[in-house]
């Protein structure tokens, strides 16, 4: 088995357009949550959402290229370009059979709506235009990135609800560890728009703390009242460690292991042991004890049931003395398909910039979170050995163990 290095990262999120902006927001505990007034008019319970306002797709790609791309695919392209630049990989080094692309994504809602509306308005399918078929597919991100970056290895999108990004990074790491690919552009992408979130809003799972958007996402806090949907794109360059070393790349960190599990229980309520089983397997695969982990980058989304289940799962694995825990969704909101990948990017940013971000808005624990060592203030030391949790509807769990050597 080969070791797997992280050599580049890129991100477009509600915390910023690049790793410096995002790092500053994480360090300061700054929220990217806004109120979308249109959602109020439309009949949403909650108008809260992560907001990306400073990203202009027309600056990234031409009109012909964007014709087949939803906004989040352009964001993924921009993040991938940033990550490749950081990894100092030139185009000719990735345009080969040994370079792949795997991105977690589970929807492309706007294009599906637009094509139906256009057909109804025009009365003929040929007036729909050529772009929407490619924009409407869940694999839109990877088919477009493959066309633009011209890689020739693995190329697919991975769908597993809110753990899509975690499984995508994990599968990429496994393919490299197995020797099937030398490097993979991997991550997660998530659309931000009211259309894709309206039925989710109807479930009553979103926070109603409309008067204080930055305090709305409060994972593990006793007064949490729901998640805040968010999105963007997070991309990492994973490489075979020995090859990255050989070409003199700066190694940002290492993916020590990836493990997964599923609950086999409820479609919407996480089980009491599913995530814990994945955590244990990831520690075993990394040949680590729970006490070797010094930071847990939690999945916790700020829903009452989900956070309680994760807290119980963490306690079952780590016992009464847990490592520092924070859910960065307290600042970003829940980045859904992207979140499992963005947690790896955020952890890498913290390791590089020398801090560990707090769990914002955590004021009082409930009976389950009281057993966790939740970080209430930014630590001035970076994380070294990190466990990233992610979990999705239907009970699909992904755990990644990362190591950062300073």
């Amino acid at each position, binding site marked *: 088995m080969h070791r797997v290095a992280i050599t580049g990262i890129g991100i477009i999120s509600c915390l910023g357009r690049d790793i410096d902006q995002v790092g500053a927001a994480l360090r300061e505990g700054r929220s990217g949550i806004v109120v979308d007034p249109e959602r109020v008019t439309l009949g949403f319970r909650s108008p809260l959402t992560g907001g990306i306002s400073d990203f202009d797709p027309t600056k990234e790609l031409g009109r*012909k290229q964007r014709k087949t791309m939803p906004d989040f695919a352009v964001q993924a392209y921009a993040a991938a370009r940033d990550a490749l630049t950081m990894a100092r990989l030139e185009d000719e080094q990735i345009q080969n059979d040994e370079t792949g692309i795997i991105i977690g994504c589970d929807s492309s809602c706007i294009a599906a709506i637009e094509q139906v509306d256009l057909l109804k308005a025009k009365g003929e399918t*040929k007036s729909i235009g050529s772009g929407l078929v490619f924009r409407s597919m869940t694999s839109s991100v990877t088919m477009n990135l493959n066309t633009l970056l011209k890689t020739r290895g693995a190329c697919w999108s991975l769908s597993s609800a809110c753990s899509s990004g975690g499984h995508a990074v994990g599968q990429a790491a496994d393919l490299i560890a197995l020797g099937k690919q030398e490097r993979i552009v991997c991550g997660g992408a998530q659309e931000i728009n009211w259309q894709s979130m309206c039925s989710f809003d109807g479930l009553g799972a979103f926070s109603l703390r409309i008067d204080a958007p930055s305090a709305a996402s409060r994972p593990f806090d006793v007064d949490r009242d729901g998640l805040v949907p968010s999105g963007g794109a997070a991309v990492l360059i994973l490489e075979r460690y020995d090859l990255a070393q050989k070409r003199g790349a700066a190694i940002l960190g290492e993916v020590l292991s990836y493990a997964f599990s599923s609950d086999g229980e409820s479609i919407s309520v996480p089980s009491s042991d599913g995530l814990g089983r994945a955590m244990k397997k990831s520690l075993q695969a990394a040949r680590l004890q729970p006490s070797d982990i010094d930071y847990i980058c939690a999945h916790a989304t700020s829903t009452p049931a989900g956070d309680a289940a994760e807290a119980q799962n963490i306690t079952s694995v780590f016992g009464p003395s847990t490592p520092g825990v924070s859910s960065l969704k307290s600042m970003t909101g829940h980045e859904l398909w992207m979140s499992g990948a963005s947690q790896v990017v955020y952890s890498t940013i913290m390791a590089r910039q020398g801090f560990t971000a707090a769990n914002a808005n955590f004021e009082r624990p409930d009976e389950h979170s009281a057993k966790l060592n939740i970080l209430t203030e930014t630590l001035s030391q970076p994380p070294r050995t990190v466990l990233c949790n992610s979990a999705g509807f239907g009970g699909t769990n992904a755990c990644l163990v990362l190591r950062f050597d300073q």
Partner: protein
Amino acid sequence: MTDQEIIELVNSSLAEEFELELADMTAETTIYDDLGLDSLDTVDMVIVLEGAFSFKIREEEAIREIRTLGDIHAFVIGKKRQLEAGL
């Protein structure tokens, strides 16, 4: 519309849709090799021309035969003249 007005409207419409430089667009310009369009783009070219000239294009065979901008100009001019003649 004069033939010249039709040519100018074809060129400006395609230039906007496909981000082309008007200076590069002559009757001899090939749409696939010179302008870099592909078969998917012809789907959108038809929509653009229909919008610009307010007619429907049913001649799919004729569209497939188009190779140069001059072919497009001739096709659109022919189509406009047919419609003006009430054919």
